[in-house]
C-alpha cells in the first residue's frame, strides 16, 4: 500500500510538471502578449505615449525574456529578479491586469465558486438518485417515461439560454436582482444575515441551471446501472429469502451501482472550480470562470496559468481519492496489481 502510494505521488508530480508546461505553452501560443493587448486599448483611448511606454513595461514585467526562461521562473526553478520565487516556492505569480499578486485576485472568487458548485453537486445528487431508483424499479411505467422526458429536455436545453430566461422571470416575479451572487449593496459589505439571505436567493438560478444537465445525465446513468444489477441472481436470492424490498435494493444493487460514481470523483473535484465558466459568465457570477476567461483573452499569463494549474492539481488529487475509495468500496478491486 505504501509503495503504491509513493509510486502514485511520483507519477502525479510528473503529470503536473507536464501539465504546467502545456498550460504555459498554450497560453503563450497566440501572437503578442499582455502588453500588445493593452497597447491597442491605450491607442484607442488616445494615449499618445502608449507605444513608447510599451517597451519599458515589457521589460518591467519580464516579458522581454525568452519563453522558456519565463516558464522556468514561473515554476520556480530559475531565479528571477527577486530570487527563486515561483509555484514551487508557493508564489503564485503576478496578475498584470489587476496589478496584484494572483492569490489576492482569485481568493474570494475561489471560495464563492466552491459554494456555488457544492450546492450544484448536492442538488444533482439529491434530485437525481431518488428519481433514478424510482424509474429503474418502475421501468417502462409512465412515470419512468416522464422522468426520461424531463431528463432529456434538461440535457438538450442550452444552459446559458435557460439562465437568461430564468434571470428575467425571477426578477419579474420575485424581484431578485439580475446576475451576481447577491444584491449590489452587499458587494463590499461584511457578512450578515441579510447578505446570506441575498446569497441564498441568488443561488437558486445558478444551481438550477448548472445542475440541470448534470441531473439529467445522472438519472440516466444511475438508472442504467441499477437495471443491470436488478436482474442479477444475488438480488433475486435476497428478495426470495425475504429481505424487505427496500432494504434489499439499497444493500445490494444500489451499492454496486454507485461504483461508477465513485470513479467519477476525479472529475467532480476539478468540476467544482471550472464547471460553470459559461453560465458564470452569462450570469455575471463573481466566480473563477469569468476571471479565467478574461485572463486568457488578455493573456494575463500567470493568472490564467495559476487557475489552470489549480484545476489540474484538483484533477490529479481527485483521481487518487477515487482510486482509493473504489478499493475500499468494492473488495473485488485490488491496488498495486499482481
Amino acid at each position: 500500500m505504501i509503495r503504491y502510494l509513493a509510486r502514485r505521488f511520483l507519477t502525479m508530480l510528473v503529470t503536473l510538471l507536464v501539465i504546467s508546461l502545456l498550460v504555459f505553452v498554450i497560453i503563450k501560443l497566440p501572437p503578442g502578449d499582455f502588453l500588445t493587448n493593452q497597447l491597442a486599448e491605450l491607442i484607442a483611448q488616445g494615449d499618445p505615449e502608449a507605444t513608447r511606454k510599451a517597451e519599458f513595461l515589457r521589460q518591467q514585467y519580464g516579458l522581454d525574456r525568452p519563453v522558456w526562461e519565463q516558464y522556468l521562473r514561473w515554476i520556480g526553478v530559475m531565479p528571477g529578479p527577486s530570487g527563486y520565487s515561483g509555484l514551487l516556492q508557493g508564489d503564485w505569480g503576478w496578475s498584470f491586469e489587476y496589478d496584484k499578486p494572483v492569490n489576492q485576485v482569485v481568493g474570494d472568487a475561489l471560495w464563492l465558486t466552491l459554494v456555488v458548485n457544492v450546492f450544484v453537486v448536492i442538488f444533482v445528487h439529491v434530485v437525481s438518485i431518488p428519481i433514478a431508483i424510482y424509474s429503474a424499479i418502475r421501468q417502462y411505467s409512465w412515470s419512468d417515461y416522464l422522468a426520461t422526458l424531463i431528463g432529456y429536455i434538461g440535457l438538450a436545453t442550452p444552459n446559458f439560454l435557460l439562465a437568461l430566461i430564468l434571470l428575467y422571470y425571477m426578477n419579474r416575479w420575485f424581484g431578485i436582482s439580475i446576475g451576481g451572487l447577491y444584491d449590489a449593496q452587499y458587494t463590499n459589505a461584511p457578512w450578515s444575515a441579510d447578505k446570506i439571505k441575498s446569497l441564498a436567493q441568488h443561488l437558486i438560478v445558478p444551481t438550477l441551471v448548472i445542475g440541470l444537465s448534470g441531473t439529467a445525465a445522472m438519472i440516466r446513468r444511475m438508472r442504467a446501472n441499477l437495471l443491470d444489477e436488478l436482474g442479477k441472481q444475488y438480488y433475486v436470492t435476497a428478495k426470495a429469502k425475504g429481505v424487505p424490498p427496500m432494504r434489499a435494493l439499497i444493500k445490494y444493487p444500489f451499492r454496486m451501482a454507485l461504483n461508477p460514481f465513485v470513479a467519477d470523483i476525479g472529475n467532480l473535484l476539478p468540476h467544482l472550480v471550472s464547471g460553470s465558466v459559461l453560465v458564470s459568465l452569462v450570469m455575471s457570477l463573481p466566480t473563477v470562470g469569468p476571471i479565467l476567461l478574461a485572463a486568457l483573452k488578455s493573456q494575463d499569463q500567470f493568472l490564467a496559468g495559476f487557475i489552470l494549474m489549480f484545476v489540474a492539481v484538483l484533477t490529479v488529487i481527485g483521481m487518487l481519492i477515487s482510486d482509493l475509495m473504489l478499493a475500499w468500496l468494492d473488495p473485488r478491486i485490488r491496488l498495486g496489481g499482481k
Partner: protein
Amino acid sequence: MKRRDVLKGLAALPFLPGASRAFAALGDLQETPFFAERVANGELPPLAERLPKSPLIVDLPARGRLIGKPGGEMTTLIARARDIHYLTANEYARLVGYDEKLQLQADILERFENEDDKVFTFHLRPGHKWSDGHPFTAEDFRYWWEDVAGNEEISPTGLPEFMVSKGKVPRFEVIDEVTVRYTWENPNPRFLPTLAQPRDPFIYRPAHYLKDLHERYGDKEKLEDLAAKAKLKSWASLHNRLDDMFENTNPALPSLQPWRVMNAAPAGRFVFERNPYYHRVDTTGQQLPYVDKVMLDVVSGGLFAAKSNAGEVDILARGLSMADIPVLKQGEAANGYRTLLWRHARGSEVALYPNLTTNNPVWRKLNRDVRYRRALSLAIDRHTLNRALLFGLAKEGNNTVGEASPLFRSEYRTRWATYDPAAASKLLDEVGLSKRGDDRVRLLPDGRPLEIVVEVDGETGLAVDTLELITEFWRDVGVKLFIKPQERTVLRNRAYAGGTVMVATAGFDNALPTALMVPSELAPVRQDNMSWPKWGQYAETHGKSGEAVDMPDGQRLLDLYETWLSTADEAQKTAIWHDMLSLHADQLWSIGTIAGALQPIVVRNGLINLPKEGIYSWEPTSLLGIYRIDEMFWDRQDRRVAEAR
C-alpha cells in the same frame, strides 16, 4: 505681421464677468449635508475654507439647467474592474476643458493666457486644495515637470509628444505660488487640446503625496525595500503604480475630480465619494457635485441591457448599443427609468479602408487609383444599409465630420457617396477592369478574379453585417467581396506589416472637431489609420521604419498638417481643416457608409439635469464629460437620503 493675440480664457463660459458676484455668492455658502457631521466634529473645515478663494461658479439657469439639491447616490455598471477609469472621462475636471459648444474654457485653472500658441500662462485658483486638503499649487506642476516627466527612471521615454514642438521642449517657469508658464520657441497648438482630452495627461501631480515615494526626496533604501515587497523592480515602478491619476486604482492618491475612489480592486463594486475640496459651486452657494456617491458595479457586459430593463441602474450609457433600444424601452414604464437617445459622433459607424501601402503590387496599384475607390463607393447603396441596420435613423455618406461640427459641409458627406452602380461600372471599366470571368466577376490585370478580402475586427457585429450587405451591392458591379473576421491584435499587426488589402472598421473617432483640434486623424501620421499604416509608421518612428509618403495627394495632406501645427492663426487653421476634409471627400481614402447611430442612455426617473439630447463620443465629448454629470441631482426626497449601506 506678428499679431499679438492674447486669448483670455476667463473662468469658463457660463459665469459672470466679474469677481464681485463671486464674493457675493460666497457669502451665503451652504454646507453639504453629507459633510455636516464631519464639519461639526472638526474633522473637516467648513465649506468656505475648503473652496478655493475664487471657486468656479456655475450658473445653471443660464444654461437651461436647474439648481439642484445635494444628496443621494447613483449606480452604474462597468464590465470589468479596469473600466473604472471611464469615470475619470465622465467626471471631466480638466485644467482646461470643452464646454457644450466645444469651446475651450478654464476649469481647474482660474484662467489662462495663450500668446500665439507659444507662451502659455496658467493661473491656478488661490486656495484650491487636493481632495485630502493639501494646497494645490505651482509646486504640483513643477513636480510633474522636473521629477516625473523629467526623471529618466519614471519616464524612460522622456517628455510626452504633445509637449514637444519641432523637436524643441518648452521652458517651464514657476512665476509664483499660483502661476506657471510654458514657453515654446515654435507654436505648439497641440498643447491645450491635449489637456482637454478624455484621457488627461495630468501635467500636475500631488507632489506632497508622491514625494515620499521619490528617490530625490525620500529614503532610497526604504523605497527599494517597499518596491521589493510589492514585487517591483525599482522605486520608480512603485512610484508609477501609485501615481495613476487616470486609472483610479489607488484610493490614497489625492484627486481634483468631483468624486474620488474609496476602494481598490479586486472588488465587485467600486464606490466613489464626493471630493470635499471640489472647486465648483452653484450660484446659491452649494458645492458640486450634487450626488454624494457614485457606485460602479462590475457586471458581465451581456447583462447590461437586462439589468437596465429591470431598473437596477441609475445611469448607464457605455456598454449599451442601438440594438438594446427595444429592450430598454420596454421596461421604462414598469421600472421607472427613461431612455435618452443621443447621437453617436463618429465619422462613419463602419468605413472601408483600402490600404495604400499594402505589399501586393497589383492591389497597391489598384488601391491607389482614385477612380477605383470612387467606383467602390458609388456601388454601395447606403440607404438600404441605413434601413436594414440602423432603423433608417442614421446619416448616409462619407466618413467625415458631423453636422454639429462647425467645420461641417454637406458636400463632404455626399461627394462620391450617392448610389450609382452604372457610374461605378463605368469607372471600373476605365481603370482597366473591364474583362470578366466566371460569375461575371471582373478580372485583375494578372488574370485573377477581383476578389477583395476585407478584414474586419471580429468583435464588432455591425461591421460584419454591413459587409454582408455590401457584398451584394458590389456583386452587381462585378466585384467580389470576401469577409475575413480577425482578432483585433492580429488584424493590427497584419496591417502594420502591409498584409491587409482592405480593412473595415469604425470611421473618424472625432467627428465633431473645431478648427483648434488637431487634425491628426486626417493626415498620414498614425500607423493605426488603416488607409496608410506604413506611412503612419514612418511618421511615428521618424523615418526608422515604414515608408515615406510617395503620392502627391498624401504629401499634400502631410504638408497641410505640418502647416496646421506651426500656425497660431485660427482662420488659417479653419482653412486647413476644410482643405483636408475636402481632399478626403474627393479622394475617398476611406469609404464611409452610415454615421450617427443612436446611443441609448438609461437614466432613472428623478435623476435630472442631463440634457435630453446630446452627442456621445469618446473624443471630444469625453463620453458624458462635457455635459457635466456633477450637475446631475435627485429630484426625489427618497433618493437624496443616503441609504444605510
